C-alpha cells in the first residue's frame, strides 16, 4: 500500500475525506477487496485505542499532589495581579511625566530669535556696482593709514635720562700742602669731579656728589644753591643708597668758597670758618653782622662742641650749625679759628 492510499484509508477512518477522495477510495476498494478489510481493521484499532484510553484511571495520588495548587485559587491572583499591574503602570507614567517635565523645565527652549530681515534698498537692477580694489591691489598707491602705521610713523620718544648711579662718600677730607681739596676716598671719578669744581665750574651742578647731597639733604642743598661754599656740615650728612653715610666735611677750595660766599640765601649772611688759611667750615647766619672775629672752637671726636670768643674780643659769632658740625682732619682739642661773616674780597 502506497503512502497516498495509506493516508486515504487513515483519513477515511476519521471521515476526513472529501467527496472526490471518498469516490477514489471506493473505486480502489472495488479493485482491491483487501483494501476494504484494511479500512475495517483501522477502524477497529482506532476504537481499541479509544477504549484503552477510557480504561486508564487516574491514580488517586495525582489529586493529592495537585491539591495545593487547587487550594491556591488563581482567581484571587487574577483579581490582585491586574490591580498591581495597573498601579505599577500608573506609577511609571507619573514618574515618567515628572521626569519629562523636569527635563523640559531645565532645557527650556529659548524664545525664537526674531528673524533677521534684510533691509530693502531701492536699487535699480541695472545699476552696476564696482568693487573697490583691495588696498594691496596696486602697490604704488598709498596704503590707508592704520593705527600701526601711525605708530610706526611717529618719532620714538626720547628715552628717560638714566638716573645717575649713587656714589658713596667714604673718604675724609684730604688736606695736602695747605691746599684745600675734597677727598672722595678711592673714587677717582669723585676726585676728578672735585678738581673740576675747583677749576671754576659751578660747584652745585658739577659734582655728582653735590647732586647726590642735594637730593639727600634739602637744607644743605639750599645752602649750596644760595652760595654756601660747602655742604659738608652736620646737617648735610648725606644719605647715599640705603645707609646714612657719615659725610666727611667737604669743602671746596678757597676760590670756590669765595665765589659761593656771596651767594647766601636772602636774609642770611654767608659764614666761613678759617683755620689758618684754610676753610674748615662754611654756612650762613642771620644773627651775625659782617666782619671778622677770632674765636676758639673745641672739637671732640671731630665735632665742634663749643665756640668761644678769644680774650679781648667783643663777642663771637656763632652761626647756625657750627656747633655740632663735624670737622674732619682737625684734631680734638681747642683751636683758634677766624670766623668771617659776609663777603670777602677775592684773592
Amino acid at each position, binding site marked *: 500500500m502506497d503512502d497516498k492510499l495509506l493516508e486515504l484509508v*487513515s483519513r477515511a477512518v476519521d471521515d476526513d475525506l472529501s467527496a472526490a477522495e471518498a469516490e477514489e477510495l471506493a473505486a480502489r476498494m472495488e479493485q482491491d477487496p483487501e483494501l476494504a478489510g484494511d479500512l475495517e*481493521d483501522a477502524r477497529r484499532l482506532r476504537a481499541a485505542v479509544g477504549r484503552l*484510553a477510557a480504561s486508564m484511571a487516574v491514580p488517586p495520588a495525582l489529586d493529592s499532589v*495537585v491539591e495545593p495548587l487547587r487550594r491556591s485559587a488563581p482567581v484571587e491572583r*487574577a483579581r490582585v495581579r491586574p490591580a498591581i499591574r495597573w498601579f505599577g503602570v500608573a506609577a511609571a507614567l507619573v514618574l515618567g511625566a515628572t521626569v519629562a517635565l523636569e527635563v523640559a523645565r531645565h532645557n527650556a527652549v529659548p524664545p525664537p530669535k526674531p528673524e533677521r530681515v534684510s533691509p530693502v534698498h531701492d536699487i535699480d537692477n541695472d545699476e552696476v556696482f564696482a568693487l573697490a580694489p583691495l588696498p594691496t591691489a596696486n602697490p604704488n598707491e598709498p596704503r590707508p593709514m592704520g593705527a600701526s602705521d601711525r605708530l610706526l610713523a611717529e618719532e620714538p620718544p626720547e628715552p628717560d635720562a638714566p638716573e645717575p648711579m649713587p656714589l658713596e662718600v667714604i673718604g675724609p677730607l684730604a688736606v695736602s700742602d695747605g691746599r684745600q681739596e675734597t677727598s672722595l676716598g678711592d673714587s677717582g671719578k669723585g676726585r676728578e669731579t672735585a678738581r673740576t669744581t675747583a677749576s671754576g665750574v659751578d660747584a652745585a651742578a658739577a659734582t655728582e656728589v653735590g647732586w647726590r647731597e642735594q637730593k639727600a639733604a634739602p637744607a644743605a642743598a639750599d645752602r649750596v644753591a644760595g652760595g654756601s661754599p660747602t655742604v659738608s656740615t652736620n646737617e648735610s650728612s648725606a644719605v647715599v643708597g640705603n645707609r646714612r653715610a657719615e659725610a666727611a666735611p667737604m669743602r671746596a677750595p678757597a676760590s670756590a668758597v669765595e665765589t659761593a660766599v656771596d651767594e647766601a640765601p636772602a636774609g642770611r649772611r654767608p659764614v666761613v670758618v678759617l683755620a689758618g688759611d684754610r676753610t674748615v667750615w662754611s654756612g650762613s647766619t642771620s644773627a651775625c653782622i659782617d666782619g671778622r672775629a677770632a674765636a676758639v672752637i673745641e672739637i671732640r671726636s671731630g665735632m665742634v662742641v663749643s665756640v668761644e670768643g678769644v680774650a679781648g674780643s667783643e663777642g663771637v659769632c656763632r652761626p647756625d650749625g657750627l656747633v655740632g658740625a663735624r670737622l674732619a682732619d682737625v684734631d680734638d682739642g681747642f683751636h683758634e679759628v677766624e670766623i668771617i661773616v659776609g663777603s670777602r674780597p677775592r684773592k
Partner: protein
Amino acid sequence: MIFDEVYERFRTPVWRLARRLTGNDDEALDATQEIFLRVWRGLDGFRGEAKLSTWVFQIAWNYLRAYRRRRSRTLVAVDDPTGDLVEMAPDPAPGPERHAVSSDLLDRVAAAVDGLPEHYRVVLWLRDAEDLSYADIAAVLDLPVGTVRSRLARARAELKRMVGV
C-alpha cells in the same frame, strides 16, 4: 478561568498522555503534577486565543518532550557509553487499563502504542484517544496539518502491524 475547573476537565487526558509517553505510572504522576503546575502558573496569561484543550495539551507536550529528552540523556550517560540514543522501552508492567478492561486486544494495543516511535505515538494518541482534530493536533505539536495526516496514517499502519490484526 478557574484552575479547579481546568484541572477537573483535563486531569485524565493529561494523565493518559503522560502515561503513554513516559511509559510508567510514577513518572507519569510526576509529569502530570509538573504539567498542572505550569497550567496553574500560566492560567492568568491565557486569553482564549486558542482552544483551552489545545493550550493545555501544548503545555503537556512541551513538558513531556523535554522530560523524555532529559531522561534519554541520562540513560545514554549511564547505560550507553557509546552515546547512541536508546529508545526507551515501555514499562513491562501492565498499566491501569489492565485492571479495568481485561482484554487481550487492549493489552496488545497498549503494548503496541507504547512501542510506537514518539512522533507517531503522540499523534495517534491525541487523535484516537483524545479525539483532537487534525488542526488541533497540528497546533499542539506545532506541525502542518498535512504532516499530521501523514504521520497519523503511518502510525496506524505501524500499530496494525504491531498488534497483528
